[in-house]
């Protein structure tokens, strides 16, 4: 019987083939994961570039005077690309595929800094150019169903009101001290918490309710 001849080697051969197939699976998975994080990194870099450009434009207006109007469309662009990146990041974060992964944590931190930088720039821009934006700070928790739902409700709000600036912040993110500064400043205790034009609302808030708070 042929099997007798191969019996000894069957387990070893099977093991080798299995390791090969298993490794191929890991490779496929990591290729797609790398593709996803690369995409994320690219959009974060784009956000940084736009925020930097926004900063320079603001300094230019402050130094030489000029047209604040031209900066309004830039605010919209920065806000939109930050929101897009945030959505991708949140989705990946909620899928828990990258939990604890250093690269992912780095991207998250980088994105958070971009958002806070944009927030301060925006505040500065409001003062410099005398404009008023509806700014919503959304403090959320990772893998928290109410926070996730709040995120979708804010997406809906952003679709309806492109002028509203929404910045989401993981309230428990300890790796970035800036987060603690904001949490202390707004006395954030639970998630989700919305700071709508400096007014604090705790718990899930529907789109219609939020609309009643904005200008």
């Amino acid at each position, binding site marked *: *019987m*042929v*099997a007798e001849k*191969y*019996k000894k080697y*069957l*387990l070893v*051969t*099977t*093991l080798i*083939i*299995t390791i090969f*197939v*298993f490794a*191929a*699976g*890991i490779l*496929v*998975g*990591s*290729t*797609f*994961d790398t593709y*996803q994080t690369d995409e994320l990194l690219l959009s974060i870099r784009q956000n940084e570039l736009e925020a930097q450009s926004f900063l320079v434009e603001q300094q230019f207006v402050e130094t030489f005077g000029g047209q604040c109007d031209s900066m309004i469309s830039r605010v919209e662009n920065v806000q939109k690309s930050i929101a897009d990146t945030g959505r*991708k990041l949140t*989705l*990946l974060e*909620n*899928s*828990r*595929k990258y*939990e*604890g992964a250093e690269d992912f944590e780095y991207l998250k931190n980088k994105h958070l800094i971009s958002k806070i930088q944009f927030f301060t720039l925006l505040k500065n821009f409001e003062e410099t150019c005398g404009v008023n934006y509806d700014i919503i700070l959304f403090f959320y928790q990772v893998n928290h*169903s109410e926070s*996730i*739902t709040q995120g*979708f*409700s804010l*997406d*809906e709000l952003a679709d309806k009101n492109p002028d509203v600036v929404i910045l989401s912040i993981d309230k428990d993110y300890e790796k970035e001290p800036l987060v603690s500064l904001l949490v202390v400043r707004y006395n954030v205790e639970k998630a989700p918490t919305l700071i709508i034009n400096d007014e604090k609302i705790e718990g*899930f808030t*529907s*789109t219609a309710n939020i609309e009643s708070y904005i200008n």
Partner: protein
Amino acid sequence: MLEIFAYKLVLYASSFISLFMAIFWISVLFLEEGNLEEPKWDRKYAPLVSILIPAHNEEDVIAATIDSALQVDYPKTKREIIVLANACTDRTEEIVKSYKEKGVKLISIKEPGKGHAINIGLEKLKGEFTVILDADSIATQNLLEVLLPKFNDIKVGGVKTSIKVWKPENFLEKLQWFEYLSVGLVHKLMSVLDVLHLTPGVFSIYRTDALKKVGGFDENILTEDIEIAVRLLHNGYKIKSSLAAMPFTKVPKTLKGYHGQRLRWARGFFTTMLKHKDMFFKKEFGLLGLFIMPISFIMPILIILSTLIVFYTIAGFILYTSLNGLLTGKIFQGATILLVDFSALFWTSVLVMCGIYVLYKSVRIFREKASYPLAGLMFFIAYPFVKSFYWFLGAMYELLGVKKVWRGDARW
């Protein structure tokens, strides 16, 4: 963090072991496909064969079973048919008596229990070989001529046949039609490697000496047919499987019947494994002890854990989308491809391809037509989970000491 680690550990372990098993059996199939032909029977050699038919209230089917046994192609003087009427309260005995002129013997046994009935039959029979034919099964004409040559190897203690489902009508029966086909092929491959460890009661043939030497059937176990096979292996015998003879069996038509049968099988399997646990990881039992028996214990646990993870993920997804739908009116928002684990998707695809290949080969080897596509798909998706679920339930019943119900009352 711990949750993710546990999730990944279970996912990776179950994927690896599933891949290993799939590749293992496909490798055996690949190597042995050309050698699955059965040895021919030398008609000059016709030892006395005793066909035992244990029956418990089988008035609806017993006549057909006896008729099929009488039609088995074998010298009439060289076979005896004995019906073991076990605690029958219906017309079974009356029907059996009507076959007296054709040489069918009847033994009435008051105390219920299939193992007990067969042991009484063993004491009375004269055959060099003993056939156990379930009262709800139909023997095919060529059964003995294809099974007896397997005993040319003196080490062979029992031979099982591959079994087909008798005229499947409803969806549940069609699911089982697929199960019997694919399991039949795997059993044949196990037989090639001498790791087959069951001889189904539907139709199996044993060397009578071997049965007596190992002490007959266990009367206190729910699946005496699994236990006797493992005991034969434990005592150095081999179990073989034949693809050439394919008797039919009637399978449970209702979920209640299916549940009862599967739970009984699972409990019996678990008890048998515990009874013969000293075979685990023993070199003297070869692949069976070193690999097949331990893996048959570990695999269901991993499949159950994987199933729980899948259910947990699906339940979480449903809860999440429902809550989101209620609060925002957008149900499937956020359910994108980003959530897919591509490694798991790749491994699952490989396993599905292996499964399709085995099923395709089974249908071909069993000379069947690829029928019932919906049942086939369902079998494909649900079978590992259902099998593992019953394994788990059976183990729990045994560990908690839930009272055993004798098969006559637990069947369909």
